[in-house]
């Protein structure tokens, strides 16, 4: 009965100590988010306004894209359009090629993960350096992020210590986070200075000013974009917001939801190129416009990529980012994966207890859990329904349509209480894995009701 997610989660859970640490650490981030959001009396008003602003901007994108382009061009920037991942990669490669770039220093961009930019550029002979500490660690390990905001959350300090020992020449056996961070600072500083171009994603693109806003704590986007004169920012069409008034709403929500901070250290507005430099903006669709045409799913495009839904998700916390088949994990990743390729990613929709905590913490009020439920209803139509579950549903239907059989089955249920353990706790009974089965009551509720109340009422 196991889905791809459940099978992968089993591997994650085999290291019990690490799994417990992962769960607790992410819950700590969730608790920080709660403390900060509860300190803002107007929090719910902010969420509602953020949702409405996103619904507005996403449904007015043709106009807002034109407005962004007009203003960015007036600011002296170049605006490119990429309809898909392939075009996104080739535009970037062309800019680099035209400027004789060998080395690109990159700030974090989930869009570049989505479009597999790094392998594309590396294959063509470019040196690509990730500069966010977590992303750099993952790049040196040659693995993918396991969280969109805390990409290396699944790794322990000892792993990083060993890695830096080998790759950066840090002290043997020193895995102190402060020491390791400053080792990376020292090494990456040289990369910022001796690269030939810098690139970043974007958190928001403001139509009325033609600027791209990047929010980081490390300042890596700023170091790259300020040390290099050839600058590239690429972002999905869903990052476009109307104006600075809207940005006031989103900057209040983003960091509080993401990491439980009142704001990120840097909220940078990239508006004009360096003197003697170039600023390129790449606006990417890659399937987003089609999602806006799906009435049950278009709200996914409200997402501002804060990761709050992951931190709160009881399944994500206990199964880790690598248990999901799509590169974005957690509730938002389940949805984006299904929208991207339902055949390939249907194994993730089981990774949800339908507790809807994700929907309650989402700063842009994406109905994440509700949409996962909708996807589950669609599984059969996609040919992805689990055959065992289908058989069981049919069995239950058979029983429900035959009241006398149903009642006698109910009467017999308590027999299970006295069955020897090996009959109940084995590979055939998924409900007996990692948990104790509940005891069946001696009497069914219906029987109890008839005995105690119906009699009284008829008296």
């Amino acid at each position, binding site marked *: 009965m196991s889905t791809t997610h459940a099978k992968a989660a089993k591997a994650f859970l085999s290291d019990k100590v690490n799994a417990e640490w992962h769960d607790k*650490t992410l819950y*700590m*981030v969730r608790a920080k988010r709660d403390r900060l959001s509860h300190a803002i*009396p*107007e929090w719910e*008003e902010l969420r509602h306004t953020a949702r409405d*602003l996103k*619904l*507005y901007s*996403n*449904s*007015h*994108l*043709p106009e807002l894209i034109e407005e962004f382009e007009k203003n960015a061009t007036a*600011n002296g920037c170049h605006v490119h359009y*990429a*309809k898909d991942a392939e075009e996104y990669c080739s535009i970037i490669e062309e800019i680099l090629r035209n400027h004789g770039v060998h080395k690109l220093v990159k700030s974090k961009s989930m869009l570049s993960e989505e479009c597999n930019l790094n392998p594309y550029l590396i294959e063509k002979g470019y040196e690509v350096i990730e*500069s*966010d500490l*977590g992303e750099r660690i993952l790049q040196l390990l040659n693995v993918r992020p396991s969280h969109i905001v*805390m990409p*290396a959350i699944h790794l322990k*300090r000892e792993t*990083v210590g060993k890695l830096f020992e080998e790759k950066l020449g840090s002290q043997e056996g020193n895995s102190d986070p*402060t020491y390791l961070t400053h080792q*990376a600072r020292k090494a990456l*500083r040289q990369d*910022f*200075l001796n690269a030939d171009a810098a690139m970043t994603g974007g958190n928001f693109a403001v139509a009325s*000013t033609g*600027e791209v806003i990047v929010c980081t704590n*490390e*300042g890596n986007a*700023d*170091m790259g*974009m*300020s*040390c290099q004169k050839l600058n590239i920012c690429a972002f999905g*069409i869903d990052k476009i917001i*109307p104006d*600075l008034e809207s*940005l*006031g*709403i989103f900057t*209040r929500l983003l960091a509080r939801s993401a*990491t439980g*901070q*009142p704001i990120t*250290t840097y*909220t*940078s507005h990239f*508006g*004009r*190129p*360096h003197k003697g430099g170039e600023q390129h903006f790449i606006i990417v*669709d890659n399937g987003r*416009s*089609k999602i*806006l*045409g799906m009435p049950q799913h278009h709200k996914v495009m409200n997402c501002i990529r804060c990761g709050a839904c992951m931190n709160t998700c009881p399944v994500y916390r206990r199964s880790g980012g690598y248990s999901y088949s799509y590169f974005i994990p957690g509730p938002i990743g389940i949805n984006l994966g299904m929208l991207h390729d339902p055949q390939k990613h249907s194994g993730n929709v089981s990774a949800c207890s339908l507790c809807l905590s994700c929907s309650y913490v989402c700063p842009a009020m994406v109905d994440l859990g509700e949409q996962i439920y909708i996807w589950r209803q669609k599984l059969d139509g996609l040919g992805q329904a689990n055959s065992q579950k289908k058989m069981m549903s049919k069995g239950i239907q058979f029983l429900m349509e035959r009241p006398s059989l149903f009642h006698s089955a109910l009467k017999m249920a308590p027999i299970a209480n006295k069955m020897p353990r090996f009959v109940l706790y084995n590979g055939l009974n998924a409900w007996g894995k990692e948990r104790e089965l509940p005891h069946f009551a001696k009497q069914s509720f219906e029987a109890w009701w008839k005995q105690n109340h119906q009699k009284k009422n008829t008296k």
Partner: protein
Amino acid sequence: MNSKEFIINSLRENIKERFPRPEVNISHIVYPDKLKQFIEISTGVGGRAEVLGEGESIDDAVRRLFPDAGRIACNLLEVTCATYNPDYIDTPAELNGTDLVICRGIFGVCENAAVYFEQEYLQRSIYFISESLLILLPKDQLVDTMHDAYRRVPNEPPGEFRCFISGPSKTADIEQALVMGAHGARQATVLLV
């Protein structure tokens, strides 16, 4: 059809319902003592903010706050303790190794200790490459929230770059342990003048 037309056409085909623009009218927090709130939250984000002492010059404050700073970058006339003017330097590599940069902030935000500034140095990197950052901020230029903040940010970008900075550069990417000084300034101080 070029890709821009492709995207715009696809959007026009797909968007089924056009939602109205909501009115943004948030009745937000107001801090009765803005200065106190700003100083407190600055500590909260790992930085510090303090009011210039009575009779104290900016130079005095710089020496008091950064006694070990050797290489100090500044182009402001009122600061004489600077050891060089970064505007006379051509490359970011030459700015590397700066202990302290002193710059001007335009206003501060009380809910999050963010200070808004517009690029005044020719080299944008000086704001990030320096080990420490000292922002001079007029103490009567404090607003409550980001709503007020963005009402004060001009729609037309005045220069190359503008930014809000709240505290020092930081990361928690290794085991969620908070470390100051990831790539940018390890220390950020706001001097309220």
